[in-house]
């Protein structure tokens, strides 16, 4: 079957490792913009972008929170950069149960970059005066059958999904019912 070509908007943040100066302003503004109420707190551990750094080896790698994963993956490759070996996990953006990265420090719920949908563009890019982060929007043509993709999950849906993965949906429903009754 012949599929139609359709236009699709691709949004992404391009990262130039060589330009990063390690100021971590990206982490700070990300955590502030997603704080509730907005800007009310800062905390890099809540940021959806983290700069993985090994300063004495001159490694500065901003990583952006990507998909939530309910289980560890099979990634087992090692990378050697400037004489230091990193596991494949070191630069992975997934919110995954094997590590603390990109999970809320209190609840353990997953964090995912939303490209600051509430703003006029990703804030981490705006404060990156070194231009290590550059926002890019472009149209690409994709085959009709791949244009789809499930709608991006909201923060709450993502959190609920991870709770369902951990406890099962029945337990979540039971708990919600109990809580509503109490209220």
């Amino acid at each position: 079957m012949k599929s139609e070509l359709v236009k699709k908007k691709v949004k992404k943040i391009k990262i130039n490792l060589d330009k990063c100066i390690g100021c971590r302003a990206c982490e700070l503004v990300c955590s502030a913009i997603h704080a509730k109420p907005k800007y009310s707190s800062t905390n890099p551990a809540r940021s959806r972008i983290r700069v993985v750094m090994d300063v004495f080896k001159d490694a500065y790698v901003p990583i952006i929170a990507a998909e939530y994963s309910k289980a560890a993956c099979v990634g087992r490759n090692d990378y050697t950069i400037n004489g230091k070996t990193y596991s494949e996990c070191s630069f992975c953006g997934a919110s995954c149960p094997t590590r603390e990265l990109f999970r809320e420090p209190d609840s353990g719920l997953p964090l995912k970059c939303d490209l600051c949908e509430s703003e006029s563009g990703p804030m981490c890019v705006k404060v990156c005066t070194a231009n290590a982060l550059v926002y890019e929007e472009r149209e690409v043509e994709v085959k009709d059958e791949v244009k789809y993709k499930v709608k991006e999950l909201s923060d709450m849906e993502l959190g609920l999904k991870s709770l369902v993965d951990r406890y099962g949906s029945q337990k979540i429903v039971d708990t919600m019912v109990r809580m509503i009754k109490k209220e």
Partner: protein
Amino acid sequence: MRYAETGYNLEIDLSTGNIERVETDPGLTELHLGGHGTAAKIMWDRVPPEVEAFSPENLLIFSSGLLDGTPVIGANRCTVTTIAPHTNLHAHSNMGGYFGPELKFAGYDKIIFRGKSPKLVYLWIHNDKVEIRDASHLQGKGAMETQIILQEELPGAQVAAIGLAGENRVYISSIEHYSTAAARLVAPVMGDKMLKAIAVRGTKDINIARPAELWQLCNSKYQEIYDNPVAGDTMYNDVEADAFHTDNFAWGNARTRRKGFWAGVNDEWVALADNLRMRWTGCYNCPKNCHQAVSVPGRPNYFVKCFRRFTYAMGAYEDLMFNYDILGLTQEYGLDAFATPQVLAFAIELYEAGILTDEDLPDFPSDGAGRFYYLLEKVVRREGIGDALANGVYRAARQIGKGAEEFDHNTIKKVEQIPMKLSMINYAFFLMLSTGEKTNITQIEGSYPQEPEPDLEKRKELVDGWEAAPERFKEYFMKWEPRQEFSIEEATNIVDWNETMHYIDDAIGTCAFLCSFRGQFGQRPPYHIYNLSNFISPATGLDLDPDKLWKIARRNRNLVRAFNIRRGLRRIDEAPPADHWKHRNPEKEQACLDAYYELKGWTNDGIPTKETLHELGLDYVIEDFIQRGIFTAD
């Protein structure tokens, strides 16, 4: 809820191993802000004058700035406060990087160490989990090496560490953290307490009192600060600034100025610096990339900034490659790059004068570089004559004797100074060098320009947009012609303003390169007395304005002064090196000192008066001074 600050300090007794998390009094934040200000209050309350630097009762306080970790750009400094062994007075040194903010994210404003550990330890803070851990595997390790080892063991930790020099209580040692160091006076106390390092990791929130208001102010400032040519260390990548250092500062043991030196090495030295540099880097939440990471063959990677690139070369009359090479060693040993070259150059002078002999320095090399490497090893290990030299120029001179005192010509209050030897006296600098409690001119000068502007039109332009300056300084500047001396009124007021700005920076954690140190080069610092309260108030919820801020800085300044007065500091101790200027005017100098003390509200002996202390709410100091006989009861 506490805003900007966490409201908790960590109290660590290294003698007993006791660890406590102690809630702080929000009233003290109103009076002193935080950082160095509240540390001064703790030192006053808890460290009586009988306590010496190496007494277990001496405190070693790591204070994050009040605004560290908030959206305020460039607020990341961590101040270390203690009594220094050099001076037996209040000591203050601060570092940038990530340490201060990380401490806040772990839930603490300060770490207060007391006591002395029976064996070498490090402190590990991970939010509420705080442990004193054995550091025997780190004994003798380099300051950079220690950071690397602890980060392997404790992923995500920020580490501040001493090297071998600090472990051996070398007075000119430093506390190192990445690209930055608390380099002056404080590290030997860390070594004495047997504390090798502090590793901290935090994942907690810092709360903001009026979030939207603060955000709006800060968010627009990233590009502004990035673009501001006087913000940051403007000397970091500027050939003219390099020439300023090599041609104007004195080489050797602060002896020889080499006018025109830079022109002869410009091409070669710039090419070398470019070749060794891996990257320009910044500190936490600041767009300025003032530091350079360098990779020198045969040495571990390290960071340099500004004048540190030349101090060893100039001390030893050597070249830039020598400087980069020896920094690879001294950064690991953890040494102050300002004081150390002067100590080594001083030893060479003593040898050449026959005061130190081949008996003191067997097989002493004949070249400057060889001699520096040789002496360095002796100093950091306190071997032989290195044991005296490790105590700094002032004390070493007196221990060695035989006329060595004559060669101690560049110290103030027993602390090595920047090797500046000039012709005409500048009375503002006379006062800052003499009276500064921080014993380092870069921590005192900075708001008022160093040079007049000869062109009247340009002068007007500068004054027109000079938002940072209170009115009287605009008048002074308009009248200031080249080669014109400051009047007494001008000198005293300039000093007062300069040091006030540093006391604010040191309390809130903003970098001097964005505020107190930058006004003197271009008059357009991003932060100044008239806009800082706009940041501090919404971050903290404190009700501040420029006048209130100035008063807090005065309070902190007077409290540090009172602490030192209680320890014996008097007018007689307040003098610059005798040869700092070729042409002196003792009469006007002393008149300046009289006027400065008067402006400060101090007696003619430099002691804050009862009226001054009372006005600043420091009545408890009055009580103490009466009890100790410094004041009479009436």
